[in-house]
């Protein structure tokens, strides 16, 4: 007779081994090592909560300090590799296999460890893919998560950086795994319950509050005039024309410039209330002036941003906040909103090839994908219509005889040359060589050309929806590639023809006076201006204060 509850019994055995260490659900920080040794078994799948922002840093240190003779061959399944400890576990032989989404800060070291054979990578996922795999074949046996506070019953209060915690805990708990939370404080009653206590096995008050990375703060002082010019083109040539109202922005200075031009340039064009009303976006400080100017009706966020807490608390009509007043973020749900509910994604990239594929991969670094591929992809399962989606779909299909359908706007916004005169347009992405060196199945393309609707550079906008055929598409891309080798190799007559047909549009074609493209057009030119715009509610991290 087959056993049908082996995981439950295994869980009970683990809990029994840990029982001497606990008082209720509370374990002392000094006993954290003993707790992990008690509950972990070699080969376990472990989710060590590494988010974009909030980090289970205390538990990461404890895990990385375990004895590899006792705990080894762990399979780490976590969305972000942010801390050194996230890779220390591989270097020390505690873990051997990795599934992840993003490793920006550790990308170089990850490439070295992989080359040295110290770990194998199952796959590099997008957030939604990895979360999906949590509920299929990559369910964590042990989850090590972080929260702001816990009560004795194990109820967790995450504060504004809820991020991945709900999805991790749900997958682990309901497949009979074990959930351990590090918290900044133990309280009698949590301000709100973000994770029900019944889903949490152990809580540990960490010696120090968990680390939070301010990832989405862009100092307006660093926005260039070229970025202002490109932002003007995006607002007038795309947002206004397609009536874009549900959208997601990438995290660079290019898109920060758009946010800061809404109260000035877009206002002057009479676009308030007509564009940019609903956002799937982290609470970018650069969005404050647009919120204050009445452009923004709602913002749902993947995670929070340091310093924005009081501002968010004071704007509950705009942000998603709990009964305690603080924001509730949720990466999985915001990714779903970004993929299915948004009509537009716009972001920067490092390289674009002749078919519009883009990649941020660089040699010697394995940075992963994060959420951009889900934001920056046409949602082929989408069925609800909007004016934006319908117009894009019409442009892509007019005259083709194809069944009518809508399409998402996916916009890539780049200056043709990056720093040190590195061309953003290339014949072949570095991703190909990276894939070969690292033994990947496919080159790590961030956004596929077939999903890209527009490319915006300082030279103009290329509307790829209107292109018919590969040749036209290539010339449209060359036609905005400026003085890069790709741009200089354009067929000038073909490009002028595309311009006549409105497939390529220069600033002057859009009625944009380049002389206006100055930093004076930014609604905030410094971080201090952002603080002022927030009525003093925005409290920027120290590194962004220079006054």
């Amino acid at each position, binding site marked *: 007779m087959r056993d049908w509850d082996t995981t439950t019994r295994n869980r009970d055995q683990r809990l029994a081994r840990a029982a001497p260490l606990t008082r209720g659900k509370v374990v002392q920080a000094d006993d954290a090592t003993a707790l992990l040794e008690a509950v972990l078994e070699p080969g376990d799948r472990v989710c060590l909560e590494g988010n974009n922002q909030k980090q289970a840093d205390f538990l990461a240190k404890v895990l990385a300090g375990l004895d590899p003779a006792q705990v080894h061959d762990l399979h780490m399944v976590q969305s972000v590799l942010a801390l050194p400890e996230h890779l220390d576990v591989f270097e020390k032989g505690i873990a051997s296999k990795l599934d992840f989404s993003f490793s920006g800060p550790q990308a170089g070291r990850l490439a070295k460890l992989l080359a040295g054979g110290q770990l194998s990578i199952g796959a590099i996922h997008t957030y939604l893919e990895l979360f999906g795999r949590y509920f299929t074949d990559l369910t964590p046996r042990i989850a090590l998560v972080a929260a702001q506070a816990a009560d004795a019953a194990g109820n967790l209060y995450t504060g504004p950086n809820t991020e991945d915690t709900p999805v991790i805990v749900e997958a682990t708990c309901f497949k009979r795994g074990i959930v351990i939370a590090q918290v900044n404080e133990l309280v009698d009653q949590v301000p709100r319950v973000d994770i029900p206590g019944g889903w949490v096995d152990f809580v540990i008050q960490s010696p120090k509050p968990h680390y939070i990375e301010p990832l989405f703060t862009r100092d307006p002082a660093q926005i*260039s*005039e*070229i970025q202002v*010019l490109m932002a003007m083109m995006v607002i007038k040539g795309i947002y206004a024309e397609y009536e874009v109202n549900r959208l997601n922005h990438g995290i660079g200075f290019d898109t920060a410039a758009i946010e800061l031009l809404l109260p000035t340039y877009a206002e002057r064009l009479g676009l308030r209330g007509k564009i940019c009303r609903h956002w799937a976006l982290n609470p970018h400080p650069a969005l404050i002036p647009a919120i204050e100017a009445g452009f923004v009706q709602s913002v749902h966020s993947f995670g929070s941003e340091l310093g924005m807490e009081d501002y968010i608390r004071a704007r509950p009509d705009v942000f998603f906040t709990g009964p305690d007043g603080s924001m509730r973020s949720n990466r999985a749900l915001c990714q779903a909103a970004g993929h299915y509910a948004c009509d537009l994604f716009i972001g920067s990239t490092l390289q674009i090839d002749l078919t519009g594929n883009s990649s941020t991969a660089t040699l010697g670094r394995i940075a992963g994908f994060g959420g951009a591929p889900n934001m920056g992809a046409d949602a082929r399962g989408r069925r609800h219509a909007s004016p934006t989606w319908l117009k894009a779909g019409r442009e892509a299909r007019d005259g083709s005889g194809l069944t009518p359908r809508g399409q998402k706007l996916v916009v890539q916004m780049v*200056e*043709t*040359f990056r720093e*040190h*005169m590195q061309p953003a347009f290339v014949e072949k992405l570095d991703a190909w060589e990276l894939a070969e060196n690292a033994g990947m199945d496919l080159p790590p393309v961030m956004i596929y050309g077939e999903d890209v609707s527009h490319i915006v*550079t*300082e*030279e103009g906008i290329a509307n790829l929806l209107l292109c018919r055929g590969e040749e036209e598409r290539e010339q449209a891309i060359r036609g905005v590639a*400026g*003085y890069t080798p790709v741009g*200089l190799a354009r067929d000038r007559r073909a490009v002028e023809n595309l311009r006549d047909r409105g497939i390529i549009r220069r600033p002057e074609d859009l009625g944009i006076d*380049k*002389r206006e*493209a100055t930093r004076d057009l930014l609604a905030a030119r410094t971080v201090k201006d952002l603080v002022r715009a927030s009525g003093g509610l925005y409290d920027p991290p120290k590194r962004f204060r220079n006054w």
Partner: protein
Amino acid sequence: METLVFDYRDGKPVPASNRPPALVGVVGSGNLEVLVEAHDLSGAARVEVVTAATGFRPIWQAVLDDFFNRHAPSNILISINDVGATPAVVSLRLDQAMEAFKAGGAA
């Protein structure tokens, strides 16, 4: 921003004898300085580029070819002091300097 021009002759101020130069771009807040001046070059125009980066002559050539194709100015001297600006910045600043020059005043 304001640019003031003062001309003197024999110790006394005189009205500017020609259109004042337009100065657009300030090193320190950016990485490029462009100066456009009226200059009798018998109908020709000249661009003097001082640049921190070597090996980009073909790109300068392409940027300037396009600029002269757009504006076709004569009898002007353009002085460029470049500290690693991208071609996008060069084009934008040249256009801005030229527009300001045509408007006959400072930017």
